[in-house]
């Protein structure tokens, strides 16, 4: 890994911290606030690729673990991992990795714009939603004793918001890809 990759990883982790400082948007039709931070997983995979994206999130998780309040709402510390949603936070790095793998496979410079949009959206949905929930929901169920089916049903509430995040991440990732492509030069 060269110094540039190291810096890209650190800068992306810093971007995720900043996204957590941005005030959350509350939508009228669902009671869940949309923070820009959980979109970071999709953005990391789609913009700096699988390996660097996953490392950016490992670095971010390390920041949380050593007690910096870098999660949205000023949360942080080991208590977050001990709580019910610890699996989601630990799953971020894996989710970013899968998002990156799919984006690297499906999105190429010569593709039409529409195909690039589709590629980034698929990567965001599969990595940032499917993989993340596949780790977070069983974890939550194991820790709290809530039956898996009930936990999974409960998680459905967040899906509309996540799809919206995937759409925003797709547009942003494609804008960065057009303006300053980093994905092709993978680490």
């Amino acid at each position, binding site marked *: 890994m060269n110094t540039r990759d190291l810096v890209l990883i*650190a800068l992306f982790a810093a971007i995720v911290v*900043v*996204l957590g400082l941005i005030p959350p948007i509350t939508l009228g039709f669902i009671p869940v606030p949309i923070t820009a931070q959980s979109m970071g997983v999709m953005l990391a995979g789609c913009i700096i690729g699988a390996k660097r994206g996953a490392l950016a999130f490992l670095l971010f998780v390390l920041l949380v673990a050593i007690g910096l309040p870098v999660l949205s709402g000023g949360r942080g510390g080991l*208590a977050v991992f*001990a*709580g019910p949603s610890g699996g989601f936070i630990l799953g971020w790095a894996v989710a970013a990795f899968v998002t990156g793998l799919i984006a690297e496979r499906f999105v190429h410079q010569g593709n039409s714009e529409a195909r690039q949009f589709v590629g980034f959206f698929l990567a965001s949905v599969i990595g940032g939603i499917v993989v993340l929930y596949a780790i977070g929901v069983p974890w939550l169920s194991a820790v709290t004793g809530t039956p898996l089916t009930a936990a999974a049903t409960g998680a459905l509430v967040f899906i509309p918001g996540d799809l919206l995040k995937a759409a925003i991440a797709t547009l942003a990732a494609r804008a*960065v890809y057009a303006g300053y492509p980093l994905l092709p030069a993978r680490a």
Partner: protein
Amino acid sequence: MLTSLYVEGQSWFHRVPVRLKLIALLVLSVGLFTTNAPLLLLPAFLLCGALYLSLGMTARQAFSRVGFVLFTILILAAVNLFLVPFPDVAALVLRLTALVLFAAAVTATTTIGAFMDETTILLKPAERLGLLRAADVSLALGLVLRFVPDIFARYQAISEAHRARGLPIRPLTIIGPLIILTLKDADTIAAAIDARGFRRQ
């Protein structure tokens, strides 16, 4: 902006070595899941609560740090009441709350420096395998802390530019430029790091 969750203090828990605290947390998190007996879980909860409150924080401070996680636990417990027998729900609330309070106590009594020393030791095996370098992790961590305020300032500059043009401030129109402008710095910073020979390559 990024102040650590460490709390200055002189309590006995402040003086316990980090490694011991982390091992205790690990043992506790495995141990508490092996039992459902209220006779074990209730004292564990009370001890962890007492420990957390003895660290020299005001009640309000103490609550605001763990309030969010406790809130999630209570919501899940409310759901569980309909699905799981009551003694199990009580056991899960006690167990998780005890664990969260202990973890919060470790965070509150350990400085970032102490955590970093421990991280470096934990990374040693990976370093020996040639997977990464512990010094790189510290460097990356330092870079993040150094650049968060800069990136936040950049976010504000972009939203001000939006306002000046009468545009609504939407995440979509801000994230693109924010990311491009930030990542464009990577080359300059990397060149500066290499020029000073920080990574000894």
